[in-house]
């Protein structure tokens, strides 16, 4: 019995709140060099966000190309879709 | 400062703070005993199970040496040194029970009782009462001397009260407020026989800088500072107004 009863994509949280939260995460990883920046944001979304919040964000990316999202946050959202994105354990900070 | 806190034991009051120096061996009343270097003779006497009477000493506070109840005799030393302020030395020979010492302790305790409410001598269970039992002194010969038995009780704090008529000015409360809590709200005002414990600039406890941590109530050996909730009827019980 899989854990996912609610249909994916439900408007769990208003979209503008999600975008702000995602950009705030992006702000933190800004000082990291390119590559690590996107990996950091993706790891955080993967391990800390409720799946429905992630799905809502990806739905926004599909529908509008991710308007309102910082560049590296948008790139990170796309990384979420790649297989094997589900890393085990705490991702820890992006390795220098 | 390590052992002074971490080696305290519940239900045991060695009189001065526990130290963790190297073992020093001496004899108390003929019994060999070892105590860590830096400990007082009072601690050694307690460890040798021949505790000396004490009032101003307690093991959560550094020795003060004011009540003079813990005088002992030490071989090779003239006079009657106080056990609380004399540190143990190797090979010391200490005597805690002699007729002379009992005479002096009786003399000091009688002075205390000459300024203590006689009505509260029977039935009390404070450290002062324990010291009375330990020395067998419960009365005094001083008739109608100057005293503080009319002083007013300060019940301003919602939780504890201060009854100055039972205060023996041992300063345990003042020292607890300074060393243990660090608020420095209590002090001794006046000198000699007029010395008395006051909060801040002679204000009631509630108006003073007292943060009501209760360290002074715990340190008081005579129930002069005492929880209101211990009194009959609990009308002193500190419920908030709406209760």
């Amino acid at each position, binding site marked *: *019995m899989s854990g996912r*009863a*609610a249909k994916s994509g*439900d*408007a*769990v*949280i*208003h979209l503008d*709140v999600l975008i702000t939260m995602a950009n*705030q995460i992006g702000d*933190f990883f*800004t*000082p990291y060099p390119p590559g690590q920046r996107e990996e950091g944001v993706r790891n*955080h979304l993967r*391990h*800390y*966000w*409720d*799946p429905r*919040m992630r799905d809502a964000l990806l739905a926004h990316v599909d529908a509008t190309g991710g308007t309102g999202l910082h560049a590296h946050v948008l790139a990170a959202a796309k990384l979420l879709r790649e297989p094997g994105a589900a890393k*085990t*354990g*705490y991702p*820890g*900070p992006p390795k*220098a | *400062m*390590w052992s002074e806190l*971490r080696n*305290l*034991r*519940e239900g045991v009051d060695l009189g001065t703070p526990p130290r963790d120096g190297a073992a020093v061996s001496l004899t108390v009343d003929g019994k060999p005993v070892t105590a860590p270097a830096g400990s007082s003779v009072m601690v050694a006497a307690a460890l040798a199970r021949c505790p000396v009477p004490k009032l101003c000493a307690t093991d*959560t506070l550094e020795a003060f040496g004011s009540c003079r109840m813990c005088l002992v005799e030490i071989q090779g030393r003239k006079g009657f040194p106080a056990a609380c302020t004399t540190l143990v030395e190797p090979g010391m020979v200490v005597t805690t029970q002699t007729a002379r010492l009992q005479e002096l302790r009786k003399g000091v305790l009688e002075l205390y009782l000459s300024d203590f409410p006689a009505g*509260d001598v029977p039935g*009390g*269970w404070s450290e002062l009462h324990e010291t009375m039992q330990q020395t067998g002194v419960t009365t005094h010969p001083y008739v109608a001397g100057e005293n503080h038995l009319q002083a007013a009780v300060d019940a301003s*704090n*919602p*939780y*504890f009260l201060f009854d100055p008529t039972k205060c023996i000015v041992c300063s345990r409360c003042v020292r607890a407020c300074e060393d*243990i809590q*660090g*608020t*420095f709200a209590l002090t001794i005002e006046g000198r000699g026989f007029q010395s008395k414990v006051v909060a801040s600039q002679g204000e009631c406890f*509630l108006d003073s800088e007292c*943060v*009501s941590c*209760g*360290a002074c109530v*715990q340190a008081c050996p005579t129930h002069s500072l*005492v*929880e209101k909730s*211990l*009194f*009959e009827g609990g009308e002193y019980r*500190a419920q*908030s*107004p*709406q*209760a």
Partner: protein
Amino acid sequence: MPNPRKPDGSVVTTCAYCGVGCGFKAETIRGEIVRMIPWKEGKANHGHACVKGRFAFDYWRHADRVKKPLIRASIAEPWREVTWDHAITHAAAELKRIQAKHGRGSAGAVSSSRCTNEEIYLMQKFARVALRNNNIDNCSRICHSPTQFGLSATLGAGAACQHFDSILQADVILVVGANPTEGHPVFGSLLKRRVRQGASLLVIDPRRTETAESAHCRADVHLALRPGTNVAVLDSLAHVIVTENLHAAKFIAERCHPAEFEQWRALVGDPRYAPEVVGPEAGVDPAEIRRAARIYASGPNSTIYYGLGVTEHSQGSTGVMCLGNLALSCGMLGREGVGVNPLRGQGNVQGGSCLGSWPHMFTGYRFVTDAAVRATFEQDWKLELDPEPGLRLPNMFDAAVAGTFKAIYIQGEDPVQSDPNQNHIVAAMKAMECVIVQDLFLNETAKYAHVFLPGSSSLEKNGTFTNAERRVSMVRKVVPPLAGLEDWEITVRLTNAMGYPLHYDHPAQILDEIARLSPAYQGMSFALIERCGSVQWPCNPQAPEGTEVLHTKTFPRGKANFMLTGYVPTSERTDERFPLLLTTGRILSQYNVGTQTRRTGNVAWYGEDVLDVHRTDADARGIQDGDFVTVTSRYGETRLRARISDKVNPGVVYTTFHFAQSNANAVTSDLNDWATNCPEYKVTAVELVKVPTGKPASSRTPASVRA
């Protein structure tokens, strides 16, 4: 006075108030609790106490205590008293109905740090086995969740590195965003004792707190920074350390990743973090930033203690990482007298965070997304578990407003009063179909509840607390629970009613289960605690009686990590409409939301929340001491009595949120920490307007305010 009555019995237990976790002897006369005496063998307090634990214990017998379960169909109707069975069955039925109708994710649970470890563990187990989702959170979400995130990110463990006594070996004490003498009084006394012995004291706090300046205890350096500039100032300290080569190169080489250090050195070494740049923006003298950095770096033993003044910001987690970086850069870890130590607010906030009461983690900070970890729990609980992180508390409220979250079971918390952006919370509550509250009193949140389960105070149950130094101590039942059930028994019955069979004879068995499933608690048991008095986790075969100091040889992940902590100013900005910055905090005599201390004699000291205003700001608005003022922000407004104070700088105002009627959180923003959604209580742009009163402004200081 006559001779006092002599107690005839006593039970050793632990105080339920702050994170110090003082040991107490509850003394009784014929079974009635008459006084609380600090326990001389309490390893956190060594026979000392504060006004709350020592005296303010009478709330447990207060007339407001609810003694029978209550239910009602809608929040408009009055409560109806029912039996325990009736209330439990009704609650379970409602939860099942709502999950069936709105989906499994539409219900959640919230545990509290005022409950025991066992109760917190049961709450998260209830969410996972009864609700079959991970919608479980705890109140440290709104105070120290950034600690758990920030310290895990840098040092690998989100808990205090030292034990309290270790401060007695410190040469330099750095206190950031905390006022121990008010919030953790017994530890505050130990700190002041160490300062009197000669340790240097550095304080970073917008207010001239009593820790910074009191009898025989004055900070050598007090950086009274503008609220919200923590990360800038902490990075500036780091700037001085790296540019003046004060860092501990050997420690970094051995125990950190040198490449990461270089990356970090480049960031903080950037001229924009120089004291001369950061100082003016943070309202602090650059020379004092340099002096503080040099004193901290020189040590030899420098220790950091910090509180909600670091965590409750939009860069809360970043601020905690700054402290981790600072300690790592100077090698101040792994021995007595050093470390980075959160002063956790409530009695069991450390317990709350390491017992899995998180939407994304099981006990011991292990991720729900980690299949291997999940397997151990599924195997023990004999049930398949939700693999995805659940909703955090703020997310639950957002989802409720969005209509997808319909039921919540709250134990020992009062989010309506304590959580930010109160109007949003109330809207969320009203949007839910079944709110279950388990508490001692009908609190603010209970106004929107459908089921009220009367809880038991710490004097009425057995269990354990984990204090701010990871010390697990025993809570022992002194008197039987007023409502008949201990809190853990209520949660067990609700879990059974939801269809998951659960049974324990005694909380000791719950702790055994926790030990089975949490590496840090492996060796923990009631028997061990009885023998040792109290035990600091990690407690495992390598440390059979617990661990006093963490990170002595290695970090949990082997090496520690330097995180790049760039300063991102909060979006909460002052402007002409809201020119002042409000920051909030706590006072000694009242506790958290005041549910307990408001019902004790402590009101003698502090009977209402008061707004501290600097004279220049007050004069500019014609406000006098004692006047009522309306405090308005972009999010709401409230009324508070003003008190002229020199404890705050011009442009900054301060209040507490101990009293419901002052609903200070009506004005706090909905901004929160980027990593954990911990609310930004500490920075809100506001304006003050004097409330016109018919009678002349009261000249005297408000009688109810002593502090």
